């Protein structure tokens, strides 16, 4: 019984010692835990440029998990108060006062999506916007490599499917005239992309979506084919040098997936069947063809897959 009591006493003493040590360690390591949390947070940075220009609002993801150093342990900063009154930490800065606190520091999010040294694979769909006689549906694929976060070089290929629109029949029926029409078969281009505009918006005040606008310019070729007014005559095909310019919006869904919508103008000088064509042979008819400048404006929508599928931030925050 006595030995049992001694054992029990030793155990109790030991557990008390362990408990004390645990308490001491937990108190000592608490700030480190906070610091570790902050380091793990990939969504936060200080960005002086954006902060200074941010006059309108602060998104939740900007402020989310913002590091708020322990006021008792860190000295208060001597930075000036944001004159616009924006704050991400939830408290309005005191106006017209010299006192500042950590809460006055505007914390903004890092760009949630990095593109530099990544490859974008973009299948997309498009449709003619500016031809009321013939409409083309375009299926295209593009491969772009981002030299920087705002500049890319890439190639694209297009395949077209035509459909004749209502005025094609109307002109024939009402005006007794057969429109001269070419269809497009396929094309390809080498393009440069530049991203001048970057933004984010809130959807119904709940979700924040990041997006950007890209400008595109390039050059390539398009193959067009004459649709003979008289089916008994031979068609002929044209290979046309095709510069293109465009603008598109990209919405970021994840680290490897974006949705894109845009407008592209493919410009070329097409060769059409001559109005007075009597020649059945396609090659001879091509020599007698009428030329005309065409702006083939397409609305495009697609998704992009990004490789590598993730990225790491390398800059200091």
């Amino acid at each position, binding site marked *: 019984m006595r030995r049992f009591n001694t054992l029990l006493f030793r155990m109790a003493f030991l557990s008390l010692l362990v408990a004390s040590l645990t308490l001491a360690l937990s108190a000592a390591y608490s700030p480190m835990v906070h610091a570790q949390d902050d380091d793990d947070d990939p969504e936060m940075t200080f960005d002086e440029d*954006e902060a200074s220009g941010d006059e309108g609002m602060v998104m939740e993801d900007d402020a989310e998990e913002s590091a708020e150093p322990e006021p008792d342990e860190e000295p208060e900063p001597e930075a000036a108060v944001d004159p616009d009154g924006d704050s*991400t930490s*939830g408290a309005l800065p005191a106006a017209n006062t010299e006192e500042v606190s950590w809460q006055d520091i505007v914390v903004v999010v890092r760009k949630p999506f990095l593109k530099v040294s990544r490859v974008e694979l973009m299948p997309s769909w498009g449709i003619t916007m500016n031809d009321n006689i013939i409409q083309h549906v375009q299926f295209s694929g593009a491969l772009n490599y981002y030299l920087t976060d705002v500049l890319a070089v890439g190639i694209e290929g297009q395949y077209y499917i035509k459909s004749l629109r209502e005025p094609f029949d109307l002109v024939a*029926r009402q005006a*007794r005239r057969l429109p001269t029409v070419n269809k497009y078969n396929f094309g390809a281009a080498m393009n440069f992309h530049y991203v001048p505009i970057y933004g984010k918006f*809130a*959807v119904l005040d709940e979700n924040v979506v990041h997006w950007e606008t890209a400008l595109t310019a390039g050059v390539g070729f398009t193959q067009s084919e004459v649709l003979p007014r008289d089916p008994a005559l031979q068609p002929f095909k044209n290979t046309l040098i095709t510069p293109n310019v465009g603008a598109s919006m990209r919405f970021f869904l994840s680290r490897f997936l974006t949705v894109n919508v845009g407008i592209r103008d493919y410009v070329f000088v097409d060769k059409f069947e001559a109005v007075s064509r009597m020649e059945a042979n396609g090659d001879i008819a091509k020599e007698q063809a009428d030329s005309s400048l065409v702006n083939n404006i397409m609305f495009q929508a697609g998704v992009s897959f990004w490789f590598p599928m993730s990225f790491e931030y390398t800059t200091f925050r």
Partner: protein
Amino acid sequence: MIKRLSILSLGALLLAGLASPSVARAERKNSLDGVPAVRHRLLLVKKRFEATGAFESSINSDFKNTLGGGLKLEVHASDLLSFGAIGIFGTSFNTGLTDKIVGTLPENDPSPNPDADPTPTKREFNAHLNSIPLHGAAYVGVTPWYGKLAAFGKFFVNFDFYFQGGLAFAQLKSDCSNDICNDNNPTGGMDSGGNVILPDNNPNDDPVLNSGFRAGLYFGGGIHVFVSDAVALDLTVRDYMFSDNPSGLDFNADLAVTDDDNRFLNHLFMGVGVSVLLPTKIKRTP
């Protein structure tokens, strides 16, 4: 003594457990849960009146393009909901397709039987085309998206996307003089003496039925880019849908121009405008 020490040590262990970092980490809660996505946001439209000088151009019209200017007035009842109206006075000009067609049409009907050739003359074709000197809409708007953007890393502006739906109206105009549109019985009939009038099967001299007031549906969407708290650039695509027969000629191949040739058509316009929002002073969300 031993019992007391044991209880004390157990309590200390429990306390240590509660205070340990791992447990604290597990219980860490995002203080922003449940709060709005955006704080301290400028309320750029809420309870404000918007007046916009608007310019519009038709997109992809078949025979006549319309270019116009007008006014859009809108009351933003809340941050999301608004009510407004727009009216645009327009002027019309031929599309490239019309110019190409007209360029190949004959000047005059064949003589002595003008109905022998169903091809319209230049005057007949032009006289049947209609234009849209006035159009507009009354609508309900929603503004579900708002945000900010940076251009070239230097210019920061606020923007919002909006969508509108409502009722459209349009005043259509076509002008066919009596020396062209002189067939008073396009589908045949009886004259005052009870004699049967056979249709001439020539729609080119039939009276035009594509003028007058039309009502229909309206849908639109656009973006405000706020250059200041009170001024915004307004970029819009609008679709005015109403019954129309832009060519004014026979559509359903019955060789006569009738009301049946009208059909419900989309009239797409692209617009740009400058909006002034009142009052000029705005509030922020908490």
